[in-house]
């Protein structure tokens, strides 16, 4: 499998960025961490925009950097493209001229510019001065421009951070489509876990310049549940799922997902579902997540409740930090994470291997960022 191999050190203001990791060049790789964890620096080192790093980087067998032999391929020659947080469109050119700037310098000449214009839905903007575009439009153009140079790897440095929710959801769907249609590996930086949860296949977590975790998106998100992430003031302890659609009830605006053979999870139907449920019939699976604080535990089967989601499982782990308890329940080989108070833990006398019922509202199953 093709991969990007990193073995680099780079002195930052307060810590040493030190990363030794092989990243497969397939699908979307999310790079997550708090502000100042070294995410952007890592991306700039891969792109060749930061030449302060020492070590080796190779793209498959091709060396991009090897400071031991003073080897450094310049950014413009790496065939790696990047979309920045601020779109960085050229203000002296129209949208179309911005796209042509990239298309002219493409090494591949395989892509049809009209196809990319359609894919990114920017046809009505082509002759607009870039200064007149909205934030979301600017990022769609920047994305189209970065694709048109036909890179072998696309880097995205928090491309959605300046956008409103609607634009974010729209661009996330677009990203998934781009990755699928063009088979273009993408490294996606974000400090928003919900964003990454929706699109990334793999997740790399950075903390103070070191790799804290790396692997399959759902697994890494579940690993993060056990780390102390409260430093940011926000807890993202959650159950991350990717499940097949079983049925869509348009009358009640409810989507049903299959968990194992006979369990179901229901969530509200929305036009903004990432992956465009309404347009494409190819989307068979839906990414969703349930915050640990949105699930409750019952010892007996709950009946006559308005809460539509009810699962039966077994407690496999209980982790207590002061008054906060994180309970892990396995149901149909899927782990669920539940936050309860130490009071409830004692009251229900919960312990591992105990069978319990989980309850959560359909609206607690989130399948878009908001």
């Amino acid at each position, binding site marked *: 499998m093709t991969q990007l191999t990193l073995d680099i050190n780079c002195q930052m203001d307060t810590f040493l960025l030190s990363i030794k990791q092989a990243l497969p060049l397939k699908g979307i790789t999310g790079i997550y961490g708090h502000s100042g964890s070294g995410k952007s620096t890592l991306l700039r080192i891969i*792109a*060749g*925009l930061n030449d302060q790093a020492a070590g080796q980087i190779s793209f498959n067998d091709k060396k991009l950097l090897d400071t031991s032999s003073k080897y450094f391929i*310049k*950014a*413009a*020659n790496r*065939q*790696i*493209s*990047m979309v*920045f947080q*601020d779109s*960085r*469109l*050229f*203000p*002296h050119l129209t949208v179309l001229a911005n796209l042509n*700037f*990239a298309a002219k*310098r*493409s*090494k591949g000449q395989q892509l049809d510019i009209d196809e990319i214009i359609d894919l990114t839905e920017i046809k009505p903007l082509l002759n607009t001065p870039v200064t007149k575009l909205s934030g979301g439009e600017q990022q769609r153009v920047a994305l189209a*421009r*970065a694709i048109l*140079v036909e890179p072998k790897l696309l880097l995205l440095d928090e491309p959605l951070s300046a956008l409103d929710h609607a634009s974010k959801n729209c661009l996330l769907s677009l990203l998934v489509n781009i990755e699928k249609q063009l088979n273009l590996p993408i490294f996606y930086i974000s400090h928003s876990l919900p964003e990454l949860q929706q699109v990334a296949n793999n997740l790399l977590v950075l903390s103070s310049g070191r790799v804290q975790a790396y692997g399959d998106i759902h697994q890494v998100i579940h690993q993060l549940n056990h780390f102390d992430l409260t430093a940011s003031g926000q807890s993202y302890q959650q159950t991350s799922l990717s499940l097949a659609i079983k049925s869509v009830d348009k009358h009640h605006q409810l989507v049903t997902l299959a968990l194992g053979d006979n369990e179901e999870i229901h969530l509200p139907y929305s036009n903004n579902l990432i992956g465009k449920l309404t347009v494409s019939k190819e989307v068979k699976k839906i990414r969703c997540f349930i915050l640990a604080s949105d699930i409750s535990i019952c010892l007996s089967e709950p009946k006559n409740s308005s809460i539509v989601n009810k699962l039966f499982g077994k407690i496999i782990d209980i982790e207590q930090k002061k008054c906060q308890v994180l309970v892990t329940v396995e149901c149909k080989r899927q782990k669920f994470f539940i936050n309860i108070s130490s009071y409830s833990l004692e009251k229900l006398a919960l312990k591992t291997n105990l069978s319990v019922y989980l309850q959560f509202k359909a609206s607690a199953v989130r399948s878009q960022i908001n």
Partner: protein
Amino acid sequence: MITENPDLLALFTTLKMAGLTTIVLLIIGTPLAWYLAKMQSRFKVVIEAFVALPLVLPPTVLGFYLLIAFSPQYLPGQLWQQTTGQQLAFSFSAIVIGSVLYSLPFVVQPLQKAFEQLGDNLIEAGAMLGAGPIDRFFTIVMPLTKASFITAASLGFAHTVGEFGVILMIGGNIPGETRVLSIALFDHVEAFNYAKAHVLAGSLLLASMVLLSLIYLLNHPEKLKVKKIKGAKK
């Protein structure tokens, strides 16, 4: 016909000198300004001070040192004589070289400021689209700093036209070679030919005023537009 009228000949020499000086200044001044805008070395201050020297030095000081350097006794003058077979001091080439040094800050400073203001963001974006350094300079930097290039060229040109002290020191007063307008004017005044002096002085004043107005117009087009709209409402 030009050669028959000494003042027209002086005008022609002046335009030729200023035009050539401006071209040379843009060719040397652009990379120098880029270097100063991007470099972070300690030497930067020294180079900046050197570039700015003509702003504070009396032109005669610069002219004096150049006169010595250009004379056949010293290396620059010698080298010039060996390669071209002609003496450098009191030649047209001498006043062009002198003007380049004399007008250097007027070209380098606006360009340096423009490059600094432009920053690295768009240049990085260009690199990410596969554009090399030269490509990026001509397709991104130059179009976005066009106004500063026009300002730099106009200021360089205008300042060279107004030069007097340096030329007097290193060029002398050779018609068709080094006799420029400012020197012709000085001649007329010395000869009490005030009528001719008035024509030269007046035209120089008018031409400079027009040129400078054009530069400021180019730099503040939006302000003028606002005024026009306000006027229309009244």
